[in-house]
């Protein structure tokens, strides 16, 4: 299997390179410190698998993935597990490895790559966005149906995701989760709150009621909320 390694950090490339040398079938064609150079290379050379760092300055790993027309198999390497959610969005992303990567985990990943290579060619199209959100809690990715979310509340370094049945505390920011939510369901109505506006029961001057949650509306966000509602 021919592979390339893309990571802006020399130490990280050296580590993935060392892991590759322990797998006899893997042959490193080249290493890149940026994704743009790698795209040029992929246009000229057949590659079976790309070890791709997601978090790179400028042109990120996700930008890279979205640029590819005939993608090889991709393994994401990341230290931020929340980015690993991206692995569920593309058929050609075979696995994700959380740094620091152990050889045991790397071996399992290579088995997945081999299995994937032996299957029929995958479509290059992006899989339809799902109606679910995966959240990282204690290193487990837990699925939540988007239409079951009522309110998302910022709480220091965490957010609270409140659904009809339960509540989850996740280490991330409101800004980051907002990017994952569809605009047709969710709206930020306060610096600390995003709501599923299809779940609103009633609205008062400065707050909305969603199930048993009274959520404040900031003055600046109120016009957008009113615009979205089907007002009589």
């Amino acid at each position: 299997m021919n592979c390339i390694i893309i990571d802006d950090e020399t130490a990280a490339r050296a580590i993935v390179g060392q892991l590759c040398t322990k797998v006899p079938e893997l042959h490193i064609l080249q290493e890149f410190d940026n994704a743009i150079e790698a795209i040029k290379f992929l246009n000229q050379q057949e590659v079976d698998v790309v070890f791709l760092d997601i978090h790179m300055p400028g042109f990120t790993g996700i930008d890279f993935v979205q640029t590819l027309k005939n993608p090889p198999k991709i393994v994401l390497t990341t230290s931020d597990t929340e980015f690993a959610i991206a692995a569920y969005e593309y058929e050609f992303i075979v696995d994700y490895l959380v740094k620091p990567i152990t050889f045991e985990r790397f071996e399992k990943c290579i088995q997945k790559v081999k299995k994937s290579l032996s299957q029929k060619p995958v479509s290059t199209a992006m899989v339809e966005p799902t109606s679910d959100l995966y959240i990282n809690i204690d290193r487990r990715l837990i699925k939540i149906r988007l239409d079951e979310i009522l309110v998302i509340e910022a709480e220091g370094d965490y957010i609270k995701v409140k659904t009809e049945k339960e509540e989850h505390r996740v280490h991330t920011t409101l800004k980051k989760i907002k990017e994952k939510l569809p605009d047709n369901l969710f709206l930020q109505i306060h610096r600390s709150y995003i709501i599923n506006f299809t779940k609103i029961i009633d609205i008062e001057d400065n707050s909305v009621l969603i199930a048993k949650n009274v959520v404040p509306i900031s003055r600046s966000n109120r016009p957008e909320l009113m615009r979205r509602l089907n007002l009589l």
Partner: protein
Amino acid sequence: MNDKPNLNYIDELAEGDVAFREKFIGIIKTEFPLEREEYMDHLKNQRFKETAMVVHKMKHKFNILSMQEAYGFAVRYEEELLEGNSGMDSSFKAILQVVDTYIESI
């Protein structure tokens, strides 16, 4: 913070491959002082986004050097910097000093 930097992870990967071990030590010895300098410079000039990027790079090194507490601290600090808050600087500098001392010893 009670983290003691070490090369256990690298030694595990190296499995006696001296060339890889030396290569890695060379990378750390070259990059860390430069990143530290970059960090000081960006912070001094209140370029918080750039400071956060350097912290992001450095946190990987903490991880590789088995400094889990320092890694967790850097994750939080990176987020704080992106919000324009550098209040965790003095504790971060203390971590850098620990790493610096260790790097000089290897």
